[in-house]
């Protein structure tokens, strides 16, 4: 973990204090941060009661667990903070939706004559937008009732599968940014590394013929390597010359965009023959990632790659020497150096892995949903990866959950734009994402708004390092 003594929870009282005492809260907060929103408090509950009250009956154990959950809510464990932050973001977003709706603003202009009408219009506007978003991204009740009347059962899961498909590249770029955060580096360059991976995957995908399964594997590995080379270069410059990774990654993003544009505008390179647009040929059929039934978007191999990558990163960070070195370097490079850790090697290696993960993100798009590289393919996966990593607190499980949330928001945003005929633009989602991460990053504000008792932790533990490293 990356907490520093200044901002992180103090572990000392947790070992000394009794289970029910409020002084045990900091340790619980830390534990809950690693867990998902649903299981966080429950897990810490059992962990609390276990060692301290071994002989008690099941009844008192349940009561204690209850106390712990209530404490988690009233004092704001990080899972609770995250949920409240999402809620608060939706409230702020509601104002934006309502007051840019001409019907609503008109209703408010006559507020003193028809106050209820104004409120009603506001509620209608907001609730319609949000319910459409939910139906598009999670579950549409009409498909459920249709299934009872002989409709397709698969249709029920269509929104969820779209969400997973949208989440896949976000999870991978999120992991790319997160693993660099763990070693104290800020990888703004996931976008450029994404392009590196996409170029290699595309070229291997249409330019090389290989047997079916091997072709897919070669492309995926190629994309990893394509991204990893870019990341490695950043780490190398940082280690050898001290060049700040923020500048180098920003510049490499632009270089990679221009390189992509160059490759896609020359027929001898990556451009599709007889094309004037910046577009590459479709990759070969045997190089595409399989889908689980139906046309894309459906949950496919890409999503499994993302989950596997998350598990691998989690394992690397928590179970290996290399991961321990990353986290030590992230906490304090000079302390790590004193302890005999090769800081420069860690920087290079972590950036190599970060680049590779961003390359894998490209593979899930190029070989998965799109099967064709265009100049606009890189979209906003890179910048979104930063927000996903921040919301996931730079931890693999957190990144997966944050990626799923953002995937759902993206799907919902597109859906709501279509459902309201452009009245509510999909850009509302960007605002919501920004607000969520802003509020998650400022737990002091959330505590103040929801009148939660404050605890020792003053803020989100430092996932990002300033210029002073």
């Amino acid at each position, binding site marked *: 973990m990356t907490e520093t003594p200044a901002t992180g929870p103090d572990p000392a009282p947790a070992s000394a204090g009794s289970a029910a005492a409020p002084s045990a809260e900091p340790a619980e907060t830390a534990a809950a941060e690693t867990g998902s929103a649903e299981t966080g408090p429950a897990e810490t509950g059992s962990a609390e009661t276990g060692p301290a009250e071994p002989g008690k009956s099941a009844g008192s154990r349940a009561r204690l667990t209850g106390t712990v959950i209530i404490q988690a809510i009233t004092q704001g464990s990080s899972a609770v903070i995250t949920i409240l932050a999402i809620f608060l973001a939706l409230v702020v977003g509601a104002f934006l939706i309502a007051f840019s709706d001409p019907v609503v603003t008109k209703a408010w202009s006559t507020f003193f004559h028809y106050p209820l009408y104004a409120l009603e219009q506001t509620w209608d506007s907001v609730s319609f937008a949000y319910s459409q978003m939910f139906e598009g991204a999670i579950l549409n009740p009409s498909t459920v009732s249709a299934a009872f009347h002989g409709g397709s059962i698969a249709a029920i899961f269509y929104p969820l599968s779209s969400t997973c498909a949208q989440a896949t590249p976000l999870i991978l770029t999120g992991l790319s940014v997160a693993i660099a955060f763990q070693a104290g580096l800020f990888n703004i360059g996931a976008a450029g590394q994404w392009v590196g991976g996409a170029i290699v995957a595309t070229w291997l995908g249409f330019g090389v013929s290989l047997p079916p399964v091997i072709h897919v594997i070669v492309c995926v590995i190629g994309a990893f390597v394509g991204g990893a080379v870019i990341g490695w270069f950043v780490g190398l410059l940082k280690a050898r010359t001290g*060049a700040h990774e923020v500048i180098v990654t920003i510049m490499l993003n632009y270089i990679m965009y221009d390189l992509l544009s160059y490759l896609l505008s020359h027929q001898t390179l990556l451009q599709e023959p007889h094309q004037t647009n910046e577009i590459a040929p479709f990759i070969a059929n045997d190089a595409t990632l399989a889908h689980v039934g139906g046309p894309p978007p459906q949950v496919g191999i890409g999503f499994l790659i993302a989950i596997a990558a998350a598990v691998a990163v989690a394992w690397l960070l928590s179970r290996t020497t290399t991961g321990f070195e990353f986290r030590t370097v992230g906490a304090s490079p000079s302390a790590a150096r004193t302890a005999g850790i090769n800081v420069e090697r860690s920087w290079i290696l972590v950036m190599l892995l970060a680049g590779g993960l961003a390359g894998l993100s490209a593979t899930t798009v190029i070989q998965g949903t799109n099967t064709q590289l265009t100049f606009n393919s890189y979209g906003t996966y890179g910048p979104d990866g930063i927000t996903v990593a921040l919301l996931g607190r730079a931890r693999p499980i957190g990144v997966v959950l944050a990626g799923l949330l953002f995937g759902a928001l993206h799907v919902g945003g597109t859906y709501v734009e279509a459902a309201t005929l452009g009245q509510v633009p999909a*850009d509302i989602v*960007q605002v919501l994402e920004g607000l969520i991460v802003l509020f998650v990053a400022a737990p002091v504000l959330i505590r103040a708004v929801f009148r939660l008792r404050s605890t020792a932790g003053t803020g989100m533990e430092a996932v990002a390092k300033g210029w002073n490293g």
Partner: protein
Amino acid sequence: MTTFAAAVRAPLTTERRHLAAVTFIVIGLINIFVFGLLARAGDASFELSLASASVKIPVIRVPAAPVCYALGVVAIGLGILRATVPFSPLAKRLAIAGVLACFLVSLLCWADAGAIPLNVIIISQGTITESIPLILGALAGCLCERSGVINIAIEGQLLGGAFTAAIVASAFGGLWVGLVAGSLAGGLVGVVLAVFAISYLTDQIVLGVVLNVLVLGMTNYLYDRLMSTNPNYNTGITFGSIKIPVLSQIPIIGPIFFDSNIFLYITYVAIIVIQVALFHSRWGLRVRAVGEHPTAADTVGIRVLWIRYRNVILGGLVAGIGGAYLTIGSVGTFIPDISSGFGYIALAALIFGRWTPLGALGAALLFGFCEEMALVLPTVNPALPAQIMNMAPYAATIIAVAGLVGKVRPPKADGQPYVKA
């Protein structure tokens, strides 16, 4: 810990000297073997006056390849000197400037060999117009970061300023109202940055990135809902150019520096005021004290949090003017994501310029020049692929940051919230 870190870092100075020397020599070799050998036959020619100028200066013609060779030899010579003789800090900077100049002139000779004359005045004007948002953004960052608050939200401040300036100027038909509104919009982003960073102790890198996302989302949303449906909110009015009476008549210098719209003159004032204020006034001494060692500053009675609030908001106002330039100062109409990464380049310029206004100015001008080259060169010499030229500024930055600048020293307390003990 600090002294220890410094001790660990110590060997870097000799290494740095060699690295700088190697970079100089590599640039010299590029001058000779890339620009010199690959230049087409013929002279490179440069015009030094506009077609409309009253005093014409004859076109300068130089043989392209020999000039590249000569400048390459100069750069290599400087590299060898740098490796063998210890340089004073001033000499180091002059050497870097000299090598960069050699590189740029070789680049121009190579690109223009045997082609129509390049107009140096137009290129310089273009460089300045490309640089203005970068300079103002970097100055905003300088104000913030010298007081100890990291400002990654420059991009958001520029974008917010650009949107607000365009919509207010269009809606009220007043350019000055638009300029003020743009500045205030940047300031508003600054207020949010300040409140969250200083009072709510939010991680400042996270905060900056998030504010950029937020402003991008907001402006896209409002563009879709207001501007794209109602062209009256996006009329595209711009400030006209103001000629400074006598100065604009000076050959070469006049049209470059004294014939532009109000934003250039605002930029001059901002550079001078901020440089003098930060480094030659009691005000600036306090700001820098807060950025370096807030506890010590607090002990002698400086109000740390107040200074940080004030500087972050001031920075936002400055960046907002830079944003307003993007719409009402140049193209007029707002388009989504009009700042397109200028804020991040301004951030790079700030770091490249070692957190000083003048350094940031130099870096911003370099970026602006490269952007301008990418626009101009393909028109002079169609054989050059535009995308490769576009890459040049970014590649140059990486070379410069890795080879010439290396490890930079930010304000000590940059990014650390101050909590009174």
